[in-house]
């Protein structure tokens, strides 16, 4: 079975998810790793035109693409152009005869589904769905020149976000690290920020914290603050009053760290740690660093 992997770069480096799916495709056998080149900025039409033309020659059965913002767009456009089956944001992919079995979340993370995507199919894959084997070789990437003649849009300009922190906006972050009164004071946020940096997470806070002026109001998560639904929500020293829960219970995975074993936050947590947050947090940040470095 012929598998395609369409990769994407950040700067000159391949994106992690691209390497993950390339490694996975290698396991599936007969993999070709492609990169659309010649585009200063991603735009769907020239990319799709080039890939679709190539697909007609190559006849791959399965196209894997990283579920990044442009990957999702390109995957959907390509599937539509070719009239193939499409499944997005896969957390696992297996091939079963003439179909791909794709694990993916549905209903905003409330349902885990396995879908059968009849081949040929395009599947976008979530970052982290496949672990990168230790010491995996850099895949050999074959360039596919974008078809500039297909472009109908004209790039005008780039407007950088005047972000003071350089962090992801709270409501769009896939990981949120939130602190509560249990952190005792604004000085503790150094530790929180360190974890957030490692995770590429946005910072959140309980109302008590923004009230006390430890953190700016924009970071408040809850009924009277922002409503968030990240893939991972880490609540540090937050007791879990309903006002806070109303803003974060839709998160896909909730981790709570609190020294009070009766704290309400544990009732909604997928993973709870009863511990002194000041002891636990540095240890956990180290572990996450290790995990990130290893993979």
């Amino acid at each position, binding site marked *: 079975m012929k598998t395609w992997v369409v990769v994407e770069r950040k700067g000159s480096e391949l994106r992690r998810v691209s390497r993950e799916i390339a490694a996975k495709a290698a396991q599936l056998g007969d993999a070709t790793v492609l990169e659309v080149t010649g585009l200063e900025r991603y735009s769907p039409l020239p990319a799709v035109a080039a890939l679709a033309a190539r697909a007609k020659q190559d006849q791959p059965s399965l196209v894997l693409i990283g579920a990044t913002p442009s990957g999702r767009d390109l995957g959907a456009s390509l599937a539509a152009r070719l009239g193939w089956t499409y499944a997005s944001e896969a957390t696992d992919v297996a091939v079963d005869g003439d179909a791909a079995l794709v694990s993916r979340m549905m209903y905003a993370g409330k349902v885990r589904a396995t879908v059968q995507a009849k081949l040929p199919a395009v599947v976008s894959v979530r970052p982290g769905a496949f672990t990168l084997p230790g010491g995996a070789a850099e895949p050999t990437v074959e360039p596919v020149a974008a078809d500039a003649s297909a472009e109908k849009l004209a790039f005008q300009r780039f407007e950088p976000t005047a972000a003071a922190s350089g962090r992801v906006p709270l409501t769009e972050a896939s990981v949120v690290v939130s602190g509560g*009164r249990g952190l005792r004071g604004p000085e503790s946020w150094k530790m929180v920020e360190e974890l957030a940096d490692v995770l590429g997470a946005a910072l959140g806070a309980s*109302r*008590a914290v923004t*009230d*006390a002026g430890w953190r700016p*109001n924009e970071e*408040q998560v809850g*009924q*009277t*603050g922002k*409503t968030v639904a990240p893939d991972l929500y880490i609540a540090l020293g937050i*007791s*879990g*009053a*309903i*006002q806070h*829960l*109303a803003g974060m*219970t839709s998160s896909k995975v909730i981790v709570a760290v609190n020294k009070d074993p009766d704290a*309400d936050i544990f*009732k909604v947590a997928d993973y709870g740690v009863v511990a002194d947050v000041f002891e636990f947090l540095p240890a956990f940040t180290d572990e996450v660093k290790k995990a990130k470095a290893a993979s």
Partner: protein
Amino acid sequence: MIPPTSGIGAAVLALFAIVGFGAFLWRAYQLYRYLRLGRNEDRTDHFWRRVRDEIVVYLGQRRLLTRRYYGRGLTHALTFWGFLVITYGTCDLLLSGIFGRRMPGTESGVYVWILDLFAVAVLASIVIAAYRRLVIRPSRMHIALDGYVILGLIGLLMVSLLVFENAGIAAGILEPGQTPPPLAGLVHLGYSHDLALAVFSGAWWVHVVTVLAFAAYLPQSKHLHIATTLPNVFFRTQRPRGALDLIDDIEGRETFGAGSVRDLSWKQLLDAYTCTECGRCSQQCPALATGKPLDPQKIVLDIRDQLLREGPKLVGAPGDRGTPPARWAPTKAEELWSCTTCAGCVEVCPVTIEHIDKIVDMRRWLTMMEGDVPAEAQRSLTAIERAGNPWGQPPDTRADWAKDLGVPTFAEKPDAEYLYFVGCAASFDRRNQKVAEALVRILRAAEVSFAILGTEETCNGDPARRMGNEYLWQTQARQNMETFAKYGVRKVIASCPHCFNTIANEYPQLGGEYEVVHAVQLVRRLVNDGKLKLARGAAPRELVAYHDPCYLGRHNKIYDEPREALGALDGVEVVEIAPHNRERGFCCGAGGGRMWMEEKVGQRVNHKRVDQIVSVRDLVASEGAKVSKVASGCPFCLIMLDEGVGAKGVAEELKPVDVLEMVASRLEVSA
């Protein structure tokens, strides 16, 4: 005394009277026309209750003679009663001065005595009032020239009255058989007869001209309340305090709420004319006290000022709606959203102004007409619409708290006597679920037959109604009423005062009449009837501060039951959070939909409330006793107090609890 108005004098006086009263009437007519710009509202129900109010509140000055205000209230009451007596005398002076006739009874010795006594009492009151304005300058009071003018005029009236009486006695112009005014005659100034006559004549003229000037000035001034309080008290609402006004035929309307002075009712406009600018409402307001832009007095005065500004234009132009109230100032909407509907203002207003209705009517316009709602409020309104609870929690988890307790639903136990209407807070908030569990234990211990609606229960609608979405309230109320009807529910227990208030006081507006009790009322009754057995024995002394929830206390006058329920527990003593207790209780900050809105300006209301509780605790501690808990009877108060003690760092030693939890922890353990 024989008036000094022989010949041309009577004609001059008549002319003055025509000018003075003419000016009064002309202005009064204008004000009446502006008043009629307001929408119709029937305020003629409960006639005898209105008569009683008139006697108690207007004539009896009951709302001035209240705790904290007795001294000041008395000076006002004396001035007011004096005004009634002296006005009668003034009519007599004018009648006799112009037509040579007397008002009946004015010749009696009793009247002369009373008049004289009041003249002195009023003068003394005026001196005290002037002293308060000039020297004490209470912060609540809006001190302006107007007040001094009025005080000056009244003072001049009293002085001129006493002077002409005194001179009249000296001149010997008492009518035959007339009782001499006792107090005015005490001083002998040794006038010659001619001088006495001249002083009499001069003071007499000064007096009557001042009266007429007063009449002309009155409707230009906040002292119009002298005239408008009479109808304002009579037409005060006879709805229960906790009930907002119903918008009937809501499906058939095109405009909702107050988008113009025309949308305020004539009574709301009369309220605005009646405001005396005393500032008592402002002094009670938790929003103002914590630095919010809301000032209840300003809400009322803005209506008056805008009506006087726009009135002349609107009277002649039926299609002109003027500026919407919520847009009278750039900050107006924020003022309106700051209100917790705690009713501190309504409770304390001496002239029965209804502040909350105005604020809610303006919110109704913002919410229903403009869709201009604070983002967090919008979120909870949408959550009520879609999930049946303002926190947007999954509706099918509403009864999860009851599963392990085996609490039956009406579907399972259709013959239950009581419905326990749990409410959203106790259904979804984990802290308040413990209160629901406590109530279940109490009801079982007392063998009360009850059931819940389970997932068929939905938000009672109170937050929506107070956030100005009357339509959503009606939708929620009707849905609950249908479910009540399905199971034949007649008796309802609520542990949340907001559920209690809206079901007891507001559902009847839609035809839903039930026997509704708040859980603490029921507990008190069960203890009294001996049905609820409490553990007896050597319990250690425990001091518990009691925080009055607004919708239990001021809105429904349930002050004693929770205190008695706590007091019935061995060893428990209730500590009052004086002076902010009972009628003067200070809001937790969560009423009026504020539970779901962010407080962006000033201090948090709940933090201020905790400060008050802490200072009472410290006071008690200085006497060697320890207050370890603060009890209330409302889930929102509990959430707010929990947050407040945490923020103030006193969570460990001052634990917020619900009265029901305390009672449930002291149930007699059966052998």
